[in-house]
């Protein structure tokens, strides 16, 4: 296997993956760092949109509910790649038109900002559904009891809804995090240098395709395994004090 891999490269595999030139290791890790940054930004933006979306869908008026329904349906029916392309050009166009109309100079949205905005809007739709499902799963009896005892709404949200909702939301949110880390690969199509793009650049320049794609695969796997560990910790913390639900899985 190693002979096959090194046969495709003029220099040996380890040389290519080394940290300093002619090794591409540093570029790949830089790409991984960009991936993580964009994923964090998009995830946070998505959660923010999701919180407002979930509350709107559950407690808003019929118009708000329908508009949010249109938003989530549209985003979930159109491929992320197409959404990224449309939003990438449309968002920067729109922002610049607004700025120009208001009399400011057009600002150049950096690739990172555009990527975060686009992926965040996409994540927002999915987050809305996850959070909405989680809030719905809070046993209504507990909320009714709290209201019957005169608990103010803010205290109710903080002491009862939020903790119970979190434990139901964490698995869905963990999936969303994994989704967003992999969706950052789509930004490679708009040329942004995250891990997949960095890998394809390295592979195309050195012709060692197999080496670099495998290396990138390993990096993504490490990211997803580490994320899985962190999220199972978070889930255990969120479920603290609840009875252990054995038997299902």
């Amino acid at each position, binding site marked *: 296997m190693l002979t096959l891999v090194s046969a495709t490269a003029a220099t040996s595999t380890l040389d290519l993956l080394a940290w300093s030139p002619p090794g591409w290791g540093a570029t790949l890790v830089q790409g991984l760092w960009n991936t993580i940054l964009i994923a964090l930004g998009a995830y946070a933006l998505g959660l923010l949109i999701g919180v407002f979306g979930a509350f709107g869908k559950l407690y808003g008026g019929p118009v708000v509910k329908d508009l949010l329904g249109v938003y989530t349906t*549209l985003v979930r029916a*159109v491929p992320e*790649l*197409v959404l990224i392309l449309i939003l990438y050009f449309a968002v920067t166009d729109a922002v610049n038109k607004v700025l120009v109309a208001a009399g400011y100079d057009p600002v150049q949205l950096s690739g990172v900002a555009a990527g975060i905005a686009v992926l965040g809007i996409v994540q927002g739709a999915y987050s809305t559904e996850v959070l909405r499902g989680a809030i719905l799963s809070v046993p209504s009896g507990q909320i009714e009891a709290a209201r019957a005892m005169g608990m103010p709404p803010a205290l109710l949200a903080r002491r009862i809804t939020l903790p119970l909702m979190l434990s139901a939301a964490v698995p869905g949110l963990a999936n969303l995090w994994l989704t967003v880390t992999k969706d950052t690969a789509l930004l490679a199509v708009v040329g942004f240098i995250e891990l997949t793009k960095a890998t*394809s650049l390295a592979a195309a320049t050195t012709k060692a*395709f197999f080496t670099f794609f*495998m290396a990138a695969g390993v990096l993504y796997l490490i990211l*997803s*395994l580490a994320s899985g560990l962190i999220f199972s910790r978070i889930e255990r913390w969120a479920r603290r004090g609840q009875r252990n639900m054995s038997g299902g899985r």
Partner: protein
Amino acid sequence: MGDLFKPFHRKVMLAVAVAIVLTCALTMNWSWLPKYAPLMVRGIWMTAWLTVVTMGLGMALAICLGIAQAAGPWWLSAPAKGFCSVIRGTPLLLQLWLLYFGLGSFFPQFPWIRESELWPILRQAWPYAVLALTLSVAGYEGEVMRGAFKGVAHGQLEAARAMGVPRFTAFRRIWLPQALHRALPTIGGEMVLQMKATPLVATITVVDIYSVAKRVTQDTFIVYEPLLLLAVVYMALAGLIVLLFRRFEASLPTRTA
């Protein structure tokens, strides 16, 4: 359907939507449509074909992976779990490129491949697309099927064994149908996700509807209109899939007890 638009605000929203569609249809630049229509039809066919075929093949593999994890010995369930973890832990784009360009970089070293029977297939791009998408479906649905298999009440299988029903027949007539029935809503959603993953095959030269839209942009420099039409096509396909699955679910008898 009639009830859907009874509330007044829904009628307003419908009117607004129709107005938006009409404005787009009349004011935007659609002059390229007649010239590219046949190509678009072929692209839509390729997208639909890829979705259906990879979903079918992938589900077959997923059932094997699911049962291996649910009931298999450790030397079957561990590789199955590993496979699912790897597929779900890496981006599909990377898997596609690894298969197409990674394998392709081996061909010059083994000239005998070109003489072999498989060469006409290995030469083209769509087999790699089908392979990558199938493995992707198998990886994700393997997890879903695992949960579905485990969720079927074990008592039924024990009763079947007690009555001497052979293991494969019990699997075929009791476990599998119920597991599939459990998983059906999720699988419908996953099929939509699979369809949304097909645009990535354009990067390995497969001509699907996304590739056609990009070709229109590069020929005519019109950026938004092809993308908008593309979004509409995908929405229509997603709606079709959801409708078909709802129909199918409704036709299956369900016991609530």
